[in-house]
């Protein structure tokens, strides 16, 4: 009804109007009568009061009209804060994350088998020597203890990873692994060799992981691949790392991160030794200091060039970044352009 209804104009106005109202009344009476007949029939047939069964159930299912609660009386996010104990690992998991956690924890479900297969494939490629195998197992054992890195997403969001953290991502059997790369710090020389002979291996700047695509991977250039091989296996190692591993094998006899660092000194940064002890603390306590280090890392990125990197790192005591830095080989300058190109720009 868009406009106000005007009564019909003309001499028969009132009559017509009366007629209109009469017709209307008739219609309304008709409706009322229809209702009465309906109700009466229902009463006599016995189904009129069917929706009122008994007092108890009526009270039980009465509509609730309180704030914070729906009409059934249920709270909206009642289960948000609840934690359930996992029957497998005995951890307390948030309710909304419980199902995916169980899937990974029990090793059932689609994703976990996929991840396990992938890990198996990459481990088979890398682990050839016995000693490395053992050390990898140790690393595996360490990494399987959850600590504070509960969520895969959290670890993915870390900008920098030290050897411990990177290794844990790469080697946990059922860990969610969104990154398709391997961390070179956790690998022994033989593994690195075999990896580089089959895969691209270029180390990503953000994740510090090696690219697991083929040697012809379009994301990285051959120059980058060559630089990575030089960086990881020695200056005389081109894309075929086998020739030079004999000479370099000594450097990898102690795959422990600490010893590696003591050996792989930057030419003009004497600060590695204090950071050695700091980094050993870091490997144990990486969980505590992850967040502040993350922030420091980004500020580092703005402040450092390639060479002054470790110096500034140690000064700001972000030993995690030190681990990743100092575990590089003797000639960091060669690798710097490819690995830390962003830092070079700022130098």
């Amino acid at each position, binding site marked *: 009804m868009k406009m106000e209804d005007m009564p019909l104009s003309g001499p028969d106005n009132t009559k017509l109007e009366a007629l*209109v109202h009469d017709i209307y009344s008739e219609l309304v009476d008709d409706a009322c009568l229809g209702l009465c007949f309906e109700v009466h029939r229902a*009463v006599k047939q016995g189904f009129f009061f069917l929706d009122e069964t008994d007092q108890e159930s009526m009270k039980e299912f009465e509509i609730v009209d309180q704030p914070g609660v729906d009409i059934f009386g249920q709270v909206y996010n009642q289960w948000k804060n609840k934690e359930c104990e996992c029957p497998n690992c005995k951890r307390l998991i948030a309710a909304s994350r419980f199902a995916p956690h169980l899937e990974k924890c029990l090793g059932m479900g689609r994703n976990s088998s996929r991840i396990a297969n992938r890990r198996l494939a990459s481990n088979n490629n890398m682990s050839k020597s016995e000693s490395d195998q053992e050390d990898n197992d140790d690393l595996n054992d360490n990494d399987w203890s959850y600590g504070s890195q509960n969520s895969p997403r959290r670890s993915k969001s870390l900008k920098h990873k030290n050897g411990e953290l990177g290794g844990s991502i790469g080697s946990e059997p059922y860990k969610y692994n969104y990154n398709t790369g391997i961390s070179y710090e956790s690998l022994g020389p033989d593994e690195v060799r075999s990896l580089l002979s089959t895969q691209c291996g270029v180390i990503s700047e953000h994740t510090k992981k090696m690219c697991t695509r083929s040697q012809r991977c379009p994301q990285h250039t051959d120059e980058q691949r060559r630089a990575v091989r030089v960086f990881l296996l020695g200056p005389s190692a081109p894309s075929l790392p086998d020739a030079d591993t004999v000479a370099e094998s000594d450097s990898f006899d102690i795959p422990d991160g600490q010893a590696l660092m003591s050996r792989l000194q930057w030419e003009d940064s004497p600060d590695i030794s204090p950071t050695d002890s700091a980094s050993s603390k870091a490997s144990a306590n990486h969980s505590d200091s992850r967040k502040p280090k993350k922030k420091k890392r980004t500020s580092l990125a703005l402040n450092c060039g390639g060479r002054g990197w470790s110096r500034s790192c140690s000064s700001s005591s972000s030993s995690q970044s030190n681990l990743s830095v100092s575990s590089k080989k003797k000639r960091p300058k060669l690798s710097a352009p490819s690995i830390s190109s962003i830092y070079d720009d700022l130098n």
Partner: protein
Amino acid sequence: MSKDSRMRATINQKLTEMGERDRLKELLRAKLTECGWKDQMKAHCKEVIKEKGLEHVTVEDLVVEITPKGRALVPDSVKKELLHRIRAFLSQHAT
């Protein structure tokens, strides 16, 4: 007066013949159900029945109780719409 009554009869006849009456009936019922009038009236019926006793209630009882209340409870919007349609019909088909 007879002219008037004749006119009325004609109009009513036309209303029925052309199906407009049934259409208006349906329209009214739909609107009343939609606006909750029917549920209101049913609740009132329940009270009347409980009052009179389930076994002995008659149609007459209900009609007497329900109709005046029903007439009063029709919402204004529904009433206006119906009147509008009736007027439109009359203006089209009145002589």
